[in-house]
């Protein structure tokens, strides 16, 4: 039954400020995220990507505005009802350096209360698509950047989430591993999950089904990547951002 649950997300005039003196981390963000799509949160440093992700994961409370998750079209009244459906992968290193891949999976499978058979099946599948199977005993502290991110992803995916929040999963990863990582994300698209991926690599916008461009806490554009490029007469997203930055200076 759970497998048919659809979760969508609507933000209304979302605002977050950490202190009165600082500029708003996020201001006036209204957005709708549809089910089953790969949404890219694209923006340079300090665009508010991490703040947005943390707000969506319930780790921060909004200063103004609302975040509403809808489960099968019904708006969830409390965050606690959606919490079990969300998997979140922080941008910061957040795994245990001294624990091996196997130990991470064991630990998280118990936190998510997977039955042994569920766990076994998930573990096999996730390890095969990430190709981490050969490194089970390697501690997280000794994994390469790309492998580390993949481990973070499988820890998040162990729980069969309906909402997947990935905060800069490809940051600091080499181009080949990045491509692999995106292919991994594509393969998850069929599973009907709402996927939000933030990134500072502009070229990655083209890989998303919807791109949401942020700058200094504000939403610039939002839409299907190819249409956005046509509309703003840019050949790629790098150009689009540079144009945008020039306009602001003028």
């Amino acid at each position, binding site marked *: 039954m759970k497998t048919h649950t659809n979760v969508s997300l609507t933000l209304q005039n979302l605002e977050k400020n950490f202190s009165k003196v600082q500029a708003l981390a996020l201001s006036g963000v209204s957005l709708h995220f549809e089910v089953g799509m790969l949404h890219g949160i694209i923006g340079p440093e300090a665009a508010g990507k991490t703040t947005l992700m943390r707000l969506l994961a319930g780790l921060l409370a909004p200063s103004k505005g609302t975040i509403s998750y809808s489960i099968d079209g019904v708006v969830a009244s409390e965050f606690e009802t959606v919490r079990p459906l969300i998997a979140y992968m*922080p941008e910061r290193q957040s795994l245990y350096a001294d624990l091996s891949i196997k130990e991470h999976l064991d630990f998280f499978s*118990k936190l998510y209360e997977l039955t042994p058979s569920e766990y076994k099946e998930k573990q096999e599948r996730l390890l095969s698509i990430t190709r981490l199977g050969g490194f089970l005993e390697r501690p997280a502290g000794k994994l390469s950047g790309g492998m580390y991110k993949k481990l973070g992803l499988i820890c998040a995916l162990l729980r069969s989430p309906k909402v997947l929040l990935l905060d800069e999963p490809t940051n600091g990863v080499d181009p080949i591993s990045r491509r692999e990582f995106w292919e991994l994300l594509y393969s998850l698209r069929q599973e009907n999950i709402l996927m939000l991926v933030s990134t500072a690599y502009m070229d990655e916008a083209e890989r998303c089904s919807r791109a949401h461009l942020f700058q200094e806490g504000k939403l610039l554009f939002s839409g299907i990547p190819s249409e956005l490029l046509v509309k703003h007469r840019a050949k790629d997203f790098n150009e689009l951002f540079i144009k945008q930055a020039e306009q602001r200076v003028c």
Partner: protein
Amino acid sequence: MNLGRMRAIAFKEATHIRRDPFTLIMAIIMPVFLVVLFGLALDLDVKNIKIGIDDRDQSYSSRRLISLFHESRSFIIAKQGHWSDAEREIRDENISAILVIPHDFEKKIKKGEAPLIQFVADGSDNAILGPALSYLYGIQLQMRQQLIETSFQPKVKIETRYLYNGELKSSYFIVPGLMSVVLAIVSILLTALTISREWENGSMELLLSTPTNPLELILGKILPYSIIGMLAVLLVYLTARLGFDIPFRGNHLFFLLACFLFLTAYLAQGTVISIVARSQAVAMQMAMVSGFLPTMLLSGFIFSISSMPPFFQYFTMILPARWFLQIVRTLFLKEAGFMEIWSPLLALLLINLVLVNVARKKFKRTLE
């Protein structure tokens, strides 16, 4: 509250501990080391009090008196001579007292009169002076018996017998107390660092996004450390019994129960610190200030609680060490049963419940 998740957290913590020998050493070897070290150094029995003797009589009786001081082993005769200014002598020669035997000492004894002996003591160090005066009293009694042969028969005689610690050995008193101080410090430090470490290395952000609730996390963190703590208790206990020859006259089961409640109370206090501090360096300092100082000074280990001002007497009630010390001193030295220790046990239990609840309340599921 899900037991499976709590177990998973405890198991994960145990894995960290296994991989980090420093924690194990700190938890198990440190307490034994500290108890041995302080047990040897902290001897409250005052011995070898340095005195000077000014024998102006130079008679058979005065020499007998001097030999009494010699034999007592409490005093060391550092100097003998004749001084006109005793005070300067005490100040300059680093001696605690000067005994002046007057020139008519023997004459008066023979006449049956009471001779006057002067004992000039350095009053600036109470720790030495108190015991010195009581030793002096003992010598005075001996002197009456040996020198003034007409045996002195007072009408009322007080005979003192010390129960539980017949020879008033201070190690009997110190080592059990030391045990509580050492275990307190080690256990508070152990947990103070664990949750703040999760904040510091970013794993808390991930943990918070899982279904784990604060209570599972807190109890899961305390559990493995309480097992390690009990191992430390065992070693410290053996050190006290075998190394310091401390008797144990109470019930071992109650002792273990008390140790467990005591450890968990400090582990819980460490957890509260860890939750509030969010950084290991701050947690460390808070642990030292809130754990070390009160346990050392206010638990009754060094200063007796009954002689503290009323406010502090009540204040000590929130310190687990105060109650544990009461239990431990009772169990080691007296044949005490449950009736003698139920109230401090209950107090420990209450402190545990309060601290775990504080930890749970203070624990926020957000990053702010």
